[in-house]
Structures are given as structure tokens and as C-alpha cells.
């Protein structure tokens, strides 16, 4: 009878459940949240949110997918990277421009306006379809038009966009490096709004209900001078030998706020900046902290409530005190407030510039041709090696022979001394963009100008976008270099210090230039057929007549009377 077999069934089920449970308990994930606030030289305020979720990965060659169970780590992300065989992923949404000269270097290095996506994917036959599928899936997840990153916008950098971080598994595993390829795409004109922020917040364990993420108020965030929201996924080693690995998901929001705009003073508080307070820490977080980088002189400001811990000026290269608030120890809502002991803020006339930065601009005018010039500034007393990367769309036809690399004001320096290496990928019309990559050695205290000329393509009438007279966007150039900690990347040094993550001696810095607008020649969309008809009529009617008139020659003809005489003669001769 069937019911007699029931107890054994139950026992079997219980027996099976055990290994599953043990697997559950062995898979650890951890979550940390940090907020760094740092005042900037021109009166603005940098607020950097960082949320780190780590999950044990086990071996990275598992066939059935790495993560069978999702706790704090978001399932949507795990499934996406599994399905598309992605090993490292960086997706950034940026609104506004990062002003390197006034603000130094950002904590999150990707500062190119628009949406930037780059990923290291497993190299096999389906990598292209995986990339395409990845962009589509991410577009659905984040409500962005990432599906526009197709072949015409995708490039494969050779020198830049290497895997990041000393703890990154790539830097320990030869097999991983060989078995993967990078793909990079950017949409400079993509706008960022609440519909992108909402799914991003939903990836956090506590969402926007508890913890530091409660401060993310769209109405305030999108009114700032710079706003960048990103997810970074990479495999990291747990120990020095890299025997066990984890998958790290870092979600960052970087925002530059301007309290001077409203009141003329630099004073700020959470309620004035974000319209909210932090109610409590996220309960599942291992660490929930707010860090404030304080000015050097204590009499200049007042900070309330007072800090939990302070790191004095002993920290490496950071000459200013750092205040840390541990939210897990707070029971009351936290509304940080800082007031400056000064009247109206006066902008400093000269500020110290960062060590390496760049500006890109379009040269020339008119609709036939133009040029692009990038000025790269090196403010250090010694040479600096940099990698330069630029992806130019196919409709601006670059001429490689017009590429000039010169140092402004110092004509004696030869181009070959500066350019160490050059990679160039020519464009295929409507298929792939041009990629120019160089290794440059910047002379000390100099401005290096890289310029190249192009012809503008006359696009087909149907290829123009709905706002055709605006023009087309060209993505930023990216300059990658290694710099030790300094005055201009204080924020990232402080954050690394406080979170005890990678603390390298030399940090990988990426400088993004501005994006450009190329104005291509547009036809008169309202009149293609009218113009063709009119032109053909004019040519048909007038060209023929005038040509005839000018070229016509004259010859003598016989008189008609003479003709008839000949005819009659013939008739008579025939009839006879």
C-alpha cells in the first residue's frame, strides 16, 4: 500500500536536504557600506557612496554556475554574469563632467559622461553573441538604451582597461588572462535619471530602507554638479596564493554637491544635501561607516555630532585628520552637520592642478573636415608614462598621416621620443569604429598635444537621427597611468585606508576627457525629390540648348530646286 512507504520517503528527503543545507552554510557573503565626504578646493563637496558585497566563488571553472544560492549577493547580477560568461564587468552611468583641475581625481575612476560598459569575457566562439546579449539584458535591467552598443561602438583596447586591483584574480592566474578578452563601449549622450537609480538601489541588500542608501534621494542627486553611479564586478583572491576566490560586487555613487550655490556659504548637513538623515545602519552589513575628510586647521570648522574615531595626520601621505562614524554603534538617526567659520565663500584665484590631466577639443570649422586635438598636461618634475586610448566613430574618417604629437612651446622634442608605441585600428564603414592607442612618455612640466585630422562623411538620408541637426557624439579619450598617492587623489587614498582594501603604493589613475559633438552635413530632409526633379529639369531643358548653340557647326546644303531636277531626271530614266 502506498502510505506504508511514506516514512522512508520522508527520511530520504531529509537525507538529501542535509548536503544542500551544508552548502548553504558554507557559502559566505558579506556586505559593507561606506560614505566618504570630502570638501573640495572650490567650495564643493564630494560625497562618495560605496557598497561592497563579497561572495565566495569556490572554483571558477564550475560548469553549473558558480552560485547556486543567493543571499546578500543579488540574483539578477549573478545570473547575468553566469549566463554571459563574464569575468569582470564595469558599468557606469555618469551625468555632468568631472573637473580634474578643481577636484583632483575621483574615487571611482570611470568618469566619462554617458554610459560606459566594459567587460572581460571568456574567449570562446560565442563571445560576440554573449556581448550583444549582455548589452541587451543590462538595458532591460537598468532601463537604459545599452542595446545601442553594437559593433559600431564596441572596441577592444589593447593597452588600456586592464583588470584592476592587486587582489584581482587576473593578476595571479595566467589561465584567466589568456582565456578572456575585453570589450568596451560607451554611449556619450545617454541620459541618467531615476529609472536607472531605482534598479541599482534594488541590487542592495537593504535597498533604500535602511543604511546609508537611504540618503540616495533622486531629487537632490540629479541636481548636482556631477553624478556617477556604477557597478563593478571582479573576482578577487582571498589570500596571497589565491587558493580561494570570491566575487566582489562594488556599487558606487559619486556625487559632487554645491552648497555655495544656495546660500553662498560652504556649510552643509545631510538634510540640506540629501533632504534626509541616516536612520540606522543596514542590519546585514558587516561594516557601516561614514568618513569625513577634515580640513587641516581645526578652528576653521565645526562638525556635529562628534566623531566616533579619528585618524590623525599620521596616515600615509594624508596630512589631514579623518573622522569616522560607525553607524552600527548609533541608535539615533545621524544628521551630520559641518559649519565653516567664514562669511561668504570666495573662490581661490589659483589652485594647484593635478599631476596629469587632459582636455580634448575639436578643431576647424565647416562641414567637410575637421580635427581633434588632445592637450595632455604633465605637472610633475619628471617624465611620466601614460597609455592613451581613443575610439572615434566611423563617420569621422581619421587620416593617420596627419597624426602629430608635439610638446607645446618646446619644438626641439622629437615626436619619436614621446610616442613609445602605437596601435591603430582603421574603421569599417557602418561596422566598427577607429581605435587609436598610444604609449606616450610625457616630458616633465609640459603640455603634449596630440592632434589628428578627419573628413566628415555625408551620411545616407535614412541614417540621420531624429535630431539630425544636433550632430553626433564622440566619446572621451582615456588616459591611464600609475601614480603614487598625492594631494590630488586624497579621497581614494582615504577610502582605501579606512576600508582596508587594496592599498597599493601606486594607484591606477584614469583620466577621461570631455565628450565632443561632431556636426555632420545634413541634407534638406523636406526636399529630396523636389531637388532631384528640379535639377534634372534644368539640365534637360537648358544644358542641351546651350551646348548645341555653342558647338553647332554649319555646312552647305543643296537647294531644293536642284533636288527636284535630279528626281525628275531619275523618273524619266526609270520610266523609259
Amino acid at each position, binding site marked *: 500500500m502506498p502510505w506504508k512507504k511514506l516514512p522512508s520517503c520522508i527520511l530520504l528527503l531529509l537525507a538529501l536536504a542535509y548536503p544542500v543545507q551544508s552548502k548553504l552554510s558554507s557559502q559566505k557573503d558579506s556586505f559593507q557600506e561606506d560614505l566618504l565626504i570630502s570638501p573640495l578646493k572650490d567650495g564643493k563637496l564630494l560625497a562618495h557612496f560605496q557598497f561592497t558585497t563579497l561572495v565566495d566563488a569556490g572554483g571558477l571553472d564550475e560548469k553549473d554556475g558558480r552560485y547556486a544560492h543567493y543571499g546578500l549577493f543579488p540574483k539578477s547580477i549573478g545570473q547575468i554574469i553566469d549566463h554571459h560568461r563574464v569575468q569582470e564587468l564595469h558599468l557606469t552611468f555618469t551625468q555632468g563632467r568631472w573637473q580634474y583641475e578643481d577636484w583632483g581625481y575621483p574615487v571611482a575612476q570611470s568618469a566619462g559622461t554617458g554610459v560606459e560598459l566594459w567587460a572581460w569575457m571568456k574567449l570562446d566562439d560565442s563571445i560576440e553573441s554573449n556581448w*550583444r546579449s549582455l548589452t541587451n539584458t543590462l538595458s*532591460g535591467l537598468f*532601463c537604459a*538604451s545599452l542595446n545601442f552598443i553594437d559593433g559600431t561602438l564596441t572596441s577592444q583596447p589593447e593597452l588600456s582597461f586592464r583588470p584592476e586591483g592587486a587582489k584581482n584574480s587576473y593578476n595571479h592566474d595566467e589561465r584567466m588572462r589568456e582565456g578572456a578578452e575585453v570589450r568596451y563601449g560607451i554611449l556619450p549622450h545617454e541620459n541618467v535619471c*531615476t*529609472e536607472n537609480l531605482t534598479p541599482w538601489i534594488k541590487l542592495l541588500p537593504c535597498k533604500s530602507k535602511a543604511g546609508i542608501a537611504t540618503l540616495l534621494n533622486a531629487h537632490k542627486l540629479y541636481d548636482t554638479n556631477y553624478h556617477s553611479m556604477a557597478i563593478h564586478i571582479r573576482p578577487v583572491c582571498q589570500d596571497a596564493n589565491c587558493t580561494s576566490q570570491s566575487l566582489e560586487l562594488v556599487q558606487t555613487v559619486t556625487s559632487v554637491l554645491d552648497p555655495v550655490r544656495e546660500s553662498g556659504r560652504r556649510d552643509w548637513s545631510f538634510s540640506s544635501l540629501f533632504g534626509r538623515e541616516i536612520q540606522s545602519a543596514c542590519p546585514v552589513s558587516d561594516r557601516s561607516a561614514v568618513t569625513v575628510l577634515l580640513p587641516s586647521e581645526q578652528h576653521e570648522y565645526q562638525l556635529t555630532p562628534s566623531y566616533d574615531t579619528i585618524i590623525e595626520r599620521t596616515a600615509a601621505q594624508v596630512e589631514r585628520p579623518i573622522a569616522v562614524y560607525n553607524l552600527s554603534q548609533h541608535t539615533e538617526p545621524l544628521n551630520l552637520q559641518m559649519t565653516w567659520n567664514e562669511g561668504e565663500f570666495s573662490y581661490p584665484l589659483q589652485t594647484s592642478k593635478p599631476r596629469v590631466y587632459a582636455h580634448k577639443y575639436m578643431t576647424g570649422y565647416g562641414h567637410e573636415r575637421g580635427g581633434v586635438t588632445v592637450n595632455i598636461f604633465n605637472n610633475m618634475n619628471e617624465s611620466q608614462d601614460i597609455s592613451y586610448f581613443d575610439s572615434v566613430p566611423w563617420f569621422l574618417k581619421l587620416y593617420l598621416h596627419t597624426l602629430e604629437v608635439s610638446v607645446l612651446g618646446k619644438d626641439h622634442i622629437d615626436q619619436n621620443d614621446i610616442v613609445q608605441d602605437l596601435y591603430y585600428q582603421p574603421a569599417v564603414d557602418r561596422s566598427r569604429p577607429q581605435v587609436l592607442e598610444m604609449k606616450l612618455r610625457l616630458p616633465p612640466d609640459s603640455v603634449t598635444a596630440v592632434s589628428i585630422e578627419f573628413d566628415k562623411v555625408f551620411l545616407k538620408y535614412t541614417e540621420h537621427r531624429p535630431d539630425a541637426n544636433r550632430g553626433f557624439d564622440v566619446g572621451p579619450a582615456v588616459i591611464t597611468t600609475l601614480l603614487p598617492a598625492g594631494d590630488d587623489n586624497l579621497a581614494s587614498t582615504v577610502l582605501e585606508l579606512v576600508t582596508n582594501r587594496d592599498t597599493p603604493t601606486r594607484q591606477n589613475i584614469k583620466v577621461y576627457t570631455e565628450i565632443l559633438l561632431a556636426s555632420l552635413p545634413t541634407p534638406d530632409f523636406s526636399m529630396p525629390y523636389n531637388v532631384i526633379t528640379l535639377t534634372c529639369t534644368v539640365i534637360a531643358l537648358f544644358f542641351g540648348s546651350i551646348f548645341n548653340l555653342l558647338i553647332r557647326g554649319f555646312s552647305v546644303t543643296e537647294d531644293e530646286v536642284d533636288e527636284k531636277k535630279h528626281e525628275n531626271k531619275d523618273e524619266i530614266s526609270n520610266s523609259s
Partner: protein
Amino acid sequence: MRLPSLLRRLFLFLFSLAFLAFLTPAANADGPKDAEVVQEFFSNGSGHTNNWAVLVCTSRFWFNYRHIANTLSMYRTVKRLGIPDSNIILMLGDDVACNPRNKFPATVFNNAARLLDLYGENVEVDYRGYEVTVENFIRMLTGRVSADTPRSKRLLSDDRSNILVYMTGHGGNEFLKFQDAEEISAFDLADAFRQMWEKRRYNEMLFMIDTCQANTMYSKIMSPNILATGSSELGESSYSHHPDWDIGVAVIDSYTYYNLEFLENIDMSSTKTLKDLFDSYDAEKIKSTPGIRSDLFRRPLDQVRVTDFFGSVQRVELTPTRFITT
């Protein structure tokens, strides 16, 4: 002739079966009748079990703020009345909330009094910017999307879905402009709807359109179960309702404004019908003549609830005891 005994038993057995079968039709007849009761319960006469909304704004550029506001007002209404984001396809031709020209970032208002922010904290835009094209629209409606299309961009309706299709933008005689660059004609739209009917992708549809000469847009539809309404007749323009002098643009169109006036008084339990909605139209206030086409729709309008299309009301009945089937 006498039958052998085996045959006799067989005959008796069969006879008794037939007798029993005859006796139990009353009990067995409850099978199909149960199904009918269940159907009745869940559909309330309309035959739909789920709701979808397709909200399309076809205009780009800052001065078309009001079209985005129209669409977002409808979005807010259908969300409030129960349709979840997974069942709403929202197509916005441009981004006005985070547009740098917007004096109030991350907000969209449909009223100069600025009391209600339509954008809010939780908005999901499925097609935005350059993705709003005629091709994408028709592909989404007919289901012929590429394999890579994510789920949120697909219209996964079935033959028990009631769909609300709302379109707004600039239009004319039997056409609607998409982003000032291409057009969809009334024939294309009718054809898309016919494909949907053939593929059994809807149960009933309400097609609402707010553009100039809007009523011409639904004149070519020929598929059954479609109810259509538009904001103005052939030769008439649709007007905006009022501007906001701080933002510098008009914030809502008349037709949609008066629709919202009615819909704001509806909640999920409301029993108001579409006839009430259409009766509330006043051509003088709207400044154009709204039209209604109900010849293809099989139910009389005074029996169609507003929430049949604008909301997703699941019928729930509380029984005192456990429901036992016979």
C-alpha cells in the same frame, strides 16, 4: 432462444452501468458548470484575467514636455489602480525629468501648481529616447522581437489580457509622427492590431490617442473587441491645457487633463463604467471634439468598468467556510 449465462451477466452489468450513468447526470453535469462558474467569477463578464498597459509618447524635444507629462499621468493612474510595472510598457521619446533644462530635476509635473510629482522614486521606462521608433513599437505589439530583447521590453499578453494602448504626440490625418522623423499610419496600426488578434494576444483593447486629428487614427481598425477614443476630429487640433511659467513650457494637454480629472476619482473598488467616462467629455472645455468608436466592441459601454482597462483588479470573494467542490 436462451442466452448463455456469461452473456446474461455481461448484459446485466452493462444495463446497470447505463442505469447508473443515467442517474448521475445531475452530479456529473456539475463539471462543465463548475468551469463556467469559475470563469464567471474571475472575469465578471469581460473574459479577461490580466491587464496590460502600453503607454507611448512619441515626441522628442523639450517643448514637448506636455506629451511626456500626459504619458506619465496615465502611467501613474494605471499603477495606482493595480497594474504592476512588469505589465506596463512605457515608451518615452525623450527624457524631461533629468533634462538639464528642467528647473526641478528628476520631477515631471502635469499641473502648474506642482503638487504631484509624476516621476517619483519608482519609475520603469522600458523604451526611451532613440529606441522609440515605429519599428520597435510594432514589433513589441505583435511580439516579433529579437531573441535578445529583455523581458521588460516584451508585451507578454495572452488571449485573456485586456490591453490599454495610450498614444500621444504630434499627429495628423491618419498618421502619427514618431520623434519628428518618421510616421506611423492608421493602416499600420490597424494591421498591427489585426496581427495581435490573429495571434490571440488580447481579449479586449482600449485604444486612446491624444494628438491633432486623433480620431482619424483609429478609423482603419477592423479587428474585434477594440474600443477606441481620440481627442479631436479631422481638421481639428488638440490644444494644451496650460503652461507653467517657471518651467517655461505647457505641462498637459486638454484631453488628457479632463480624462485625469475623472480618473483621479476612481480607485480600485470603483464600479464606474466607461460610459460615465465618455459622458464626462465636454467638447467646449476640451476645445476639440473627442470621438469614440465602439462598433467593434461586443459589450455595451455601460457594462464595462473603468478598472477593466485602467486597473488590474483581481476579484476576491471571501467565503465563510472552505469552498468544497462536488
